[in-house]
């Protein structure tokens, strides 16, 4: 479930994972911040549709075009700077103020019929603002005190139903059939939006439930590992036939240490957006290089890659270390690691018989598969035959697609 989430949403969950009091509200506000720009853009489009659809005179058209332009500018601004939701504090008043001021303002600016036929405008110009604001604030209200949580839905529904009616009634001397039609159509559009919002909420809840279940499962598995290995160690210690079976205890505790280390790494990778290269090398060496008599490690502390690139490094190191064992019978293998600001280069140098690098270009071979995978993230796998040793080098960007992939190297 975690892997399927968009990467930018991971940061929200990372916020939640930090466990700061009030962090959840802050994280939700940031999420809402992402929606602000979209809401403003939609509003600008709606107003523009009104201009095109309604038979307005010049003044009405000018007023609405200015309104559309202002919304468009605000939407553009929200793409590069934080909006009121992310800023919090007094900035929140901007949205709340808009919710209450804009509908009557728009209704007074564009009274029905004054500047021409404004049938579309009733729904599209001003009244959607409270809808957008309330939908945006809905998750925020849900995360506050219990009273607000209980009142949020009825308050929003009542407001949505009554506000357009009150605005229309207040700005017209007498309710005409067109007014009632526009009110009903407005309410219908609100209900449709509300159902859509609820559907989105259900999807989000299910996603979060999936993550929770995954973590609960991981935790259960983790405790099982600890439990069974500690039991094995205790059994070895208490074995009546071999009192103080130190070898048995050591083996059980070694296994426990390896398992815990692996689970910790998995947990950390699930929460982080980057993976330390050193951890990838240590894990690969533990799993695939344990048989090598002399395995030389590189210095790789402090550099990290994205999860997608980490998978490629993981795969490649596993393949190359296994390759060194199966084909090269190497007993002295060296892993190298270098980097610059764009890419990281990880090599495996076999000082035994050497790799057979010809497989790189032969479809169906493991080396060719590894090269294909590395190219998918904008990297490459290369062979450097040297005297007395063979060096296979994986070159990958820190994040996928930073480097352009050449068609055939």
């Amino acid at each position, binding site marked *: 479930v975690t892997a399927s989430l968009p990467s930018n949403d991971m940061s929200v969950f990372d916020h939640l994972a930090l466990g700061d009091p009030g962090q959840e509200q802050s994280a939700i506000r940031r999420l809402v911040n992402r929606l602000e720009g979209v809401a403003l853009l939609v509003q600008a489009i709606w107003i523009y549709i009104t201009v095109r659809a309604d038979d307005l005179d010049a003044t009405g058209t000018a007023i609405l075009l200015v309104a559309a332009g202002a919304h468009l500018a605000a939407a553009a601004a929200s793409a590069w700077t934080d909006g009121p939701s992310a800023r919090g504090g007094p900035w929140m008043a901007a949205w709340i103020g808009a919710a209450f001021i804009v509908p009557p303002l728009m209704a007074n600016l564009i009274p029905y019929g004054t500047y021409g036929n404004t049938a579309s405008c009733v729904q599209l110009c001003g009244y959607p603002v409270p809808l957008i604001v309330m939908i945006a604030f809905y998750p925020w209200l849900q995360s506050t005190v219990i009273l607000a949580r209980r009142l949020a839905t009825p308050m929003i529904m009542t407001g949505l139903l009554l506000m357009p009616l009150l605005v229309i009634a207040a700005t017209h001397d007498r309710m005409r059939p067109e007014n009632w039609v526009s009110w009903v159509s407005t309410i219908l559009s609100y209900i449709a939006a509300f159902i859509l919002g609820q559907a989105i909420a259900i999807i989000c809840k299910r996603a979060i439930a999936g993550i929770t279940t995954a973590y609960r499962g991981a935790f259960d598995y983790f405790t099982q590992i600890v439990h069974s290995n500690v039991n094995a160690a205790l059994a070895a210690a208490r074995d009546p036939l071999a009192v103080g079976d130190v070898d048995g205890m050591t083996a059980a505790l070694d296994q426990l240490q390896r398992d815990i280390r692996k689970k*910790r790494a998995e947990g950390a990778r699930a929460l982080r957006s980057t993976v330390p290269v050193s951890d990838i090398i240590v894990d690969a060496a533990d799993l695939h290089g344990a048989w090598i008599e002399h395995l030389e490690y590189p*210095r790789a502390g402090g550099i990290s890659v994205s999860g997608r690139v980490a998978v490629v490094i993981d795969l490649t190191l596993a393949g190359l270390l296994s390759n060194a064992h199966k084909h090269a019978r190497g007993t002295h293998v060296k892993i190298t690691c270098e980097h610059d*600001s764009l890419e990281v280069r990880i090599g495996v140098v076999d000082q035994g018989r050497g790799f057979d690098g010809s497989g790189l270009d032969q479809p169906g071979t493991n080396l060719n598969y590894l090269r294909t995978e590395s190219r998918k993230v904008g990297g490459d796998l290369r062979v450097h035959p040297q005297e007395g040793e063979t060096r296979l080098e994986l070159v990958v960007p820190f994040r996928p697609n930073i480097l352009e992939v050449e068609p055939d190297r």
Partner: protein
Amino acid sequence: MKILLVEDQILFGSGLQQKLQAEYGMDVDYTPDPHEALSRLETSAFDVVIADLLLITVQQEAGARYLHGAKQLDDRFLQTSGLAVLAASQDAKRPTGPGHTEPKRAGRVVLTSAEGERMCHLAFAYQTLKVRCFCAKDLRPRPGETRAEWELVQAIKAAADGRHYESGSVTVQLPEERKESFFDALFAGPSWGRIWQALALGRTSIPGIAATADRSEGLVRREIIQMHENLSRVDPGRGGSERKSGRAGSRTERLITVAQFAGEFRKYFLDKTVQGYAERKFQR
């Protein structure tokens, strides 16, 4: 040879003490408490100081409990780790008399489990404190490997002789040789120490960081951009936008990147020695 050993896991530490004394004839002074180690360093001279990096002490546990709900920075947040012992022993003199030879300064060995979360501590020990001997706690020999001598003893002898020693699994966690140290990049401004502390305590909004670090919001906003830039320079994998390759990302994305780093290396940014060095750097 007189050794000071600091290791918080008493079963492991006392086992090492017995083995080094019984099998190698070393005079080992062992303590699980870094504060006790610091006072022993003041009163006694040692040939080699061996220190674990992350030490769980009573003070550390009390500090961890105090973290919840606190809004202002406080000395209680800062933890004393093995780095304090390594820093204090940097210029410690060796015992004099028969059997003690050059160099005159005590050798230092970092004894560590070399897991990823210790990366910043290891970089500080290597780049800032200039420790050159690193021994992995995982002292198992690899299959087929025959060692003439126990790895820790090799590290102790190397430290005593002023030579370098690195266990393979620690080497991989050390930074590449480079001109700029992690510490210099991460503490390049006078307010950065406090901002990192606030981030490490879980503050991730600009107003929250500013209030906790006792700095203005404008300053925090500007410094976070520079902190992100420096972090991207030492670890390019953390720079850039998640969605837009090669771009630095929005201010919020930069803040989140920096906050995630502070969260991952929380113990480093709440380390008394690291923060002390950061403070002194700008007092000079």
